[in-house]
C-alpha cells in the first residue's frame, strides 16, 4: 500500500501544483507535498528494512537494493526542494518557465525515478527510464535560452536513442528467458530471472549480446564515455536544482538498472564477461573525464565532467566486484550525490550573484560570497576524495579491492587520475576564490533555505566520513545481501 502511495502522491501532486498560479503559493504547496512524499518514502524504506521486500501486484517490488537507492533519492530531493524554494526567485521567460511548471515537472521526474527503483518488471523499468528522460527534458530546457534549447534537444535525442538500445537488450534477454522455458510474464521479472539465471546459460551468446546492448543503452543515461555527449550540456544549461537532481539522482537510477542486469547476467554466464565490460567503461570514463576536467572553463561543466568521472569510479567498483568493491560502489553512489548537490548549489549561487559561470571571470568570491565559497571548498575537498569526507571511504574501499585482487594496472591508473583531478579542482577553485572581486555584488545575501540545504549536505559529508550511521549501514548491508 505504502509503495503505491509513494508512486501516486507525486503524480497527483504534480497535477494539483499546476493549479497554483501564484509563485509563492506554488512554492509552499510544493514544500508541503515534498515533506509528505519524503515521509512516505521513509516509511517504505523502513518497512522494507524491517519485513523484507514489499510487493504490489506483478509489476512493483521494492527490496533492499531499491530501498538503498531510495534513501539517496529522498535525501537529495529534499535538499533540492529546499534549495529551489529560494532559488526560483528569478524564474526565466517562456511558456513553461513558471514555478508551478517547475515543481510539477520536478514531481513527475521524481515519480519516474521512484518507479525505476521499484519496478519488478524489466519492461516497466525501461518504460520508466525513458519516462525520466521525457520528464526532465523540459526541465533541462527550462530557461528557453539558445543554450538551454540546444541542450534539451540533444538530451532528448541522445538519451532516447541510447535507451532504444537498452530496449533491444531487454528484448534479447527476454528471448533468452522464453527460450529457456520461462513463461512470458516471468521472463521479464528480475526476481524470476535471477532464480532462473543458471539455466539461461544455454544461450550464452544471447545473454552476452543482451548485456552489451543494456550497458550501452543505460550507460548512455549514466554518462559513460563515449556516450556522454549529452551530459555536460544538460547539466550546464539546466536550472541549478535540476542539475543537482540529474547528477545526484538520475545517474544513480541508471546505475541501479545496470546493477540489476549485471546480477542476472553474472548468474547466467559468470561474472567475468559483464564485469570486464563494466571495468572497461569505468576506466574509459574515469580517464577521459578526469583529463577533460583540467580544461573546463564553465563551472557547471566542470561539475558535470566530475560526475562522469565519479560514474566511472562506481563502474570500476562494480566491475571489480567482491565485497569491498560492491560496498564501495554502492556507498559511492550516495556520497557522490551529496557532494555533487552541495557543489551545484554553490555554483547556482555564484551564477545568481555574478550572472556568469565562466571561471576566468569569477574572482575573489571568498570575500564577496563567503558562505558559497565555504560550500564550494567543502564540496571540492570532498569530491576529490580527501580524508575527512565520506567519498574518501568509498574510494578507498574500491582501491583496496583493486589492490587485493592484484589489479595493479587499474589501481595505479585510478590513483593517477585522482591526483590529476585533485590538481584540476585545486587550480579551478583557487582561481575563483582568490583575487579581488571584480564588481560589488548587490545581492550577496543567502536566504535561510539555501544555506540550510548547503549546510545539511556539508554536515552529512563530514559525518559519513567520520562514521557511517548504524541505520544507514544496515540499509547498505540489506542492499548487498540482495546481490549476494
Amino acid at each position, binding site marked *: 500500500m505504502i509503495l503505491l502511495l509513494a508512486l501516486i502522491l507525486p503524480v497527483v501532486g504534480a497535477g494539483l501544483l499546476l493549479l497554483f498560479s501564484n509563485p509563492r503559493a506554488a512554492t509552499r504547496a510544493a514544500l508541503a507535498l515534498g515533506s509528505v512524499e519524503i515521509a512516505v518514502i521513509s516509511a517504505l524504506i523502513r518497512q522494507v528494512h524491517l519485513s523484507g521486500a514489499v510487493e504490489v501486484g506483478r*509489476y512493483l517490488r521494492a527490496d533492499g537494493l531499491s530501498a538503498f537507492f531510495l534513501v539517496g533519492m529522498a535525501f537529495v530531493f529534499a535538499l533540492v526542494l529546499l534549495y529551489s524554494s529560494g532559488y526560483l526567485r528569478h524564474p526565466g521567460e517562456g511558456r513553461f518557465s513558471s514555478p508551478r511548471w517547475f515543481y510539477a515537472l520536478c514531481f513527475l521526474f521524481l515519480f519516474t525515478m521512484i518507479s525505476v527503483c521499484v519496478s519488478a*518488471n524489466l*519492461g*516497466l523499468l*525501461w*518504460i520508466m527510464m*525513458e*519516462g525520466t*528522460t*521525457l520528464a526532465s*527534458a*523540459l526541465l533541462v*530546457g527550462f530557461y*528557453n*535560452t*539558445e*543554450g538551454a*534549447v*540546444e*541542450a*534539451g*534537444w*540533444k538530451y*532528448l*535525442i541522445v538519451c*532516447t*536513442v541510447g535507451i*532504444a538500445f537498452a*530496449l*533491444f537488450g531487454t*528484448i534479447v534477454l*527476454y*528471448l533468452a528467458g*522464453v*527460450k529457456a522455458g520461462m513463461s*512470458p*510474464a516471468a521472463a*521479464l521479472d528480475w526476481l524470476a530471472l535471477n532464480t532462473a539465471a543458471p539455466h539461461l546459460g544455454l*544461450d550464452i*551468446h*544471447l545473454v552476452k*549480446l543482451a548485456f552489451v546492448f543494456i550497458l550501452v543503452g543505460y550507460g548512455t543515461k549514466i554518462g559513460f564515455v563515449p556516450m556522454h555527449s549529452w551530459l*555536460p*550540456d544538460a547539466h*550546464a*544549461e539546466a536550472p541549478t536544482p535540476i542539475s543537482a537532481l540529474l547528477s545526484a539522482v538520475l545517474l544513480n537510477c541508471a546505475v541501479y538498472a545496470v546493477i540489476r542486469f549485471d546480477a542476472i547476467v553474472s548468474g547466467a554466464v559468470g561474472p567475468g564477461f559483464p564485469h570486464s565490460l563494466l571495468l572497461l567503461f569505468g576506466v574509459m570514463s574515469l580517464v577521459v573525464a578526469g583529463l*577533460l576536467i583540467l*580544461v*573546463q*572553463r564553465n563551472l557547471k*561543466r566542470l561539475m558535470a565532467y566530475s560526475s562522469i568521472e565519479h560514474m566511472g569510479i562506481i563502474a570500476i567498483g562494480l566491475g571489480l566486484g567482491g565485497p569491498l568493491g560492491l560496498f564501495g560502489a554502492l556507498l559511492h553512489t550516495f556520497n557522490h550525490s551529496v557532494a555533487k548537490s552541495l557543489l551545484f548549489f554553490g555554483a547556482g549561487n555564484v551564477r545568481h550573484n555574478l550572472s556568469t559561470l565562466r571561471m576566468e571571470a569569477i574572482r575573489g568570491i571568498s570575500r564577496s560570497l563567503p558562505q558559497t565559497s565555504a560550500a564550494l571548498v567543502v564540496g571540492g575537498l570532498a569530491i576529490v576524495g580527501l580524508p575527512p569526507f565520506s567519498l574518501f571511504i568509498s574510494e578507498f574501499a574500491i582501491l583496496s579491492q583493486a589492490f587485493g585482487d592484484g589489479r595493479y594496472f587499474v589501481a595505479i591508473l585510478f590513483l593517477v587520475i585522482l591526483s590529476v583531478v585533485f590538481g584540476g579542482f585545486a587550480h579551478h577553485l583557487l582561481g575563483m576564490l582568490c583575487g579581488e572581486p571584480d564588481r560589488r555584488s548587490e545581492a550577496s545575501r543567502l536566504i535561510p533555505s539555501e544555506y540550510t540545504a548547503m549546510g545539511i549536505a556539508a554536515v552529512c559529508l563530514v559525518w559519513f566520513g567520520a562514521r557511517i550511521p548504524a541505520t544507514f549501514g544496515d540499509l547498505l548491508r540489506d542492499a548487498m545481501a540482495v546481490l549476494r
Partner: protein
Amino acid sequence: MGLVGIATGKVLSSFSVFLFLTILLLAVARRISTSVLLFSLQSAVITAEVLATAIQEKLAEAWVVGLLVFAIKVVAIPRAFFVLARRLKTVRDVKASTTPTQSVFIVAVMIYLSYAGVHSYGQAVHVPDDALAAAVALILTGAFLMVSRTKAIMQMLGLLVLENGIFLAALITTFGMPLVIEIGIFFDILMGLLLMGIFSFRISDTFDHLDVSKLRRLRG
C-alpha cells in the same frame, strides 16, 4: 486454410522484401513529405506482419498490438508530422549530408551487414534470416538517417524507423512482449514525439531555422 491462410503465408514470407524496399527508398527520398509517407508505408507493412502473426499463432493480444501500430504509426504520427511541417513552415528538402547515390550505397551495405550479422543467431532462435536481417537493417538505417539528415523532423523520423526495427525484432523472435509493456512503450514513444515537437518549435523560434547541425554553441 482458405484465403486468409494463404494471405498470411504470403505476408510472412514477403514482408522483409517490402521493408528493404522502404528503407532503400528512404535513402533516396529528397522531400520530407515523401519520407513521412514512406515511414507510414513501412509501418503498414509491419501492421500486416503483426496481424499475420496474430492469425498464424492465434494470439489475441497481437490483434490489439496490430491495431495500435496501425492507429499510431500508420495514421496518427504521419498526420502529426504533416501538421508539424506545415506549422513550422519548413523547407521541403530533407537537407541530407550525403548524396542520394551515397545514401543508397550505404543502406545497401547495411542490409548486407545485417545479413552477415544475424547469420549465427538466426538458427539459434529458429527465425528466418530474412526477417531478422530486416529488423537489424531498420535499426541501422534509422541510426544512419539520424546522423545524415540535419532537419530536426528527419531526426525524429530516423528515431521512429529505428524503433520500428526494435519492435520488429521483438515481434519475430518472441511474438512480442506482454501487452501491458507494449502499450507502455507506445505511450513513451508518443510522449517522446510530443516533446520533440515542442522542442522543434522552440528551436525554430530561438534560432529561426530547424537545422540541428547548426546547433554548435555547446562544446568541450
